[in-house]
């Protein structure tokens, strides 16, 4: 399995846009898109949970050459809370109900576009990691909070 690359990021962005999928990059991948210098192993997408959005997502993923069976497609369309895909050209996690964020629409209202990539607001990324409270999130949070301070100051000029 190859690491996620910029070109693949573009392919995800473009394929999901073509199919009209409503989603946001979240997690460390989202923070990295916002400028956070760190490493990660996969990309997490926060996907709006509606049947139509799920169907559009499955079509886009199949176009990206993820080997999704019909049963798996039904699960994605139903919007299970968490789906882990390692059956395509790169690893992708689909999160339909991230910890720390109540509704997709709230996150969508706050989201940021980075070169066409829809990304959760940094505050939402941090809220989600804080709520998840795993050891690996605990390690990342102090530096991520410092980055938020830097990022806000940069936004204000």
């Amino acid at each position, binding site marked *: 399995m190859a690491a*996620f690359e*910029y070109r693949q990021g573009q392919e995800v962005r473009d394929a999901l846009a073509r199919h009209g999928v409503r989603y946001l990059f979240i997690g460390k991948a989202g923070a990295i898109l916002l400028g956070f*210098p760190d490493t990660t192993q996969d990309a997490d997408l926060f996907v709006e949970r509606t049947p139509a959005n799920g169907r559009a997502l499955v079509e886009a993923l199949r176009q990206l050459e993820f080997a999704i069976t019909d049963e798996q497609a039904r699960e994605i369309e139903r919007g299970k809370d968490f789906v882990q*895909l390692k059956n395509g050209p790169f690893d992708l996690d689909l999160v339909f109900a991230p910890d720390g964020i109540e509704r997709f629409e709230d996150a969508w209202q706050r989201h940021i576009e980075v070169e066409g990539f829809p990304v959760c607001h940094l505050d939402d990324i941090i809220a989600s990691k804080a709520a998840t409270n795993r050891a690996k999130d605990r*390690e990342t949070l102090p530096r991520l909070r*410092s980055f938020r301070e830097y990022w806000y100051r940069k936004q204000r000029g």
Partner: protein
Amino acid sequence: MTLPEDNAIVEQVGIPLEWMEEFEAAARRPLEMRLRYAFIHTYKPVLDDAPYRAFDTMADYRRWCEENLPDWLGYGRV
């Protein structure tokens, strides 16, 4: 991740100097380069051993991680 050893702080912004320098350096790089450095792939036992997994709830997923993944991967809740 730990604080830089000298715990140097840029007083005006409360950000450790070492991190501030990293943030500034990253801001100077184009997105394509940032992503090239950011995504790495190393084998994660158990986690990488199935092509597809789905969980009805996040609680189910967290529980599965705690029951099945080695602690050192860091997926257990604190």
